[in-house]
């Protein structure tokens, strides 16, 4: 598979899986207003995923019969075909864990999309430009919640710390480049992740200081998602997300 296609799928899968996770809150948010907020973010992410999948389908169909669609990419690939990072597939847990997962990811995505905008691939750069504004808001929203909970009551602080314990080991993968990301950086399509990492650490430290959370020391990190080796969580997501298309192929409503 050409690296541009792999790279595009990776961007799409990250957005789709986190969007799906967030959508699980719809109707279950801690308060009506936040239920709407997290659902809006879910919709933004799934919208981004659609744009990337449409482009990926175009790339996949070049020079063949053209049977790949955005839907077949989302609904008919198996777990090992998905290239999302492990962080985004982790369970929602409580509000603190959902918030922290979003914060870690948005703090990455905001610079990633900004760099995509100036990249050499016209389509990816256009998607990045459109999505960048959405992500700026996601980062702002999730940063404030991290601060609010971290610097809140004893219970909210404890929950935030627990979320940090659970999620930190999945953050290293953000900046361990897969071969297609190395290709993208070389080809000028995407950013050099080692540069982005510096910005991410700054963003996270800044918010953690305000939130009264200590920035964890370097430790062993979980990896594999970018190349299709996932935690068990992805299987449950796909089972729910893909059931309908697999049981009733081509159905719509």
């Amino acid at each position: 598979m050409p690296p541009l296609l792999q790279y595009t799928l990776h961007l799409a899968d990250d957005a789709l899986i986190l969007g799906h996770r967030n959508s699980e809150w719809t109707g279950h948010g801690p308060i009506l207003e936040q239920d709407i907020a997290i659902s809006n973010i879910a919709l933004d992410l799934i919208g981004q995923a659609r744009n990337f999948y449409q482009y990926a389908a175009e790339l996949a169909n070049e020079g063949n019969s053209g049977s790949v669609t955005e839907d077949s990419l989302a609904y008919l690939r198996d777990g090992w075909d998905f290239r999302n990072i492990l962080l985004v597939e982790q369970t929602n847990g409580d509000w603190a864990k959902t918030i922290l997962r979003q914060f870690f990811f948005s703090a990455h995505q905001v610079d990633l999309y900004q760099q995509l905008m100036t990249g050499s691939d016209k389509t990816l750069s256009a998607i990045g430009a459109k999505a960048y504004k959405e992500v700026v808001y996601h980062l702002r929203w999730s940063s404030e919640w991290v601060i609010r909970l971290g610097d809140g009551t004893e219970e909210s602080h404890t929950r935030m710390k627990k979320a940090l314990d659970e999620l930190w080991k999945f953050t290293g993968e953000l900046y361990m480049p897969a071969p297609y990301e190395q290709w993208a950086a070389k080809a000028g399509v995407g950013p050099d992740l080692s540069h982005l990492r510096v910005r991410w650490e700054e963003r996270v430290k800044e918010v953690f200081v305000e939130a009264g959370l200590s920035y964890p020391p370097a430790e062993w990190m979980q990896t594999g998602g970018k190349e299709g080796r996932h935690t068990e969580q992805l299987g449950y997501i796909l089972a729910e997300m893909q059931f309908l298309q697999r049981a009733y192929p081509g159905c719509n409503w």
Partner: protein
Amino acid sequence: MSSENQSASGRAEWPLWEIFIRSKQGLDHKHVGSLHAADAQMAIENARDVYTRRMEGVSIWVVESKYIHASNPDDAASFYDPASDKVYRHPTFYDLPDELKHM
């Protein structure tokens, strides 16, 4: 019962906020509704998510509902009826040029 449920039932409600949105530059902020939030910052963000999803606004004001003082409906007769027979108070005798909008 889990601690999560206990804390949820014992939780104090967040205060109520009145939301005002300006739909375009040059127009007034209009009252659009109310929502709950822990503080002003969160009220603005909640308003953004609840009331501006379909591009309804360019500016948001929030006021905690307890700071709104309202007239008493029982006073309606003395408050408003005396104005009803004083048409000369209305600037209805002018022709407005078409170029003037939002009057």
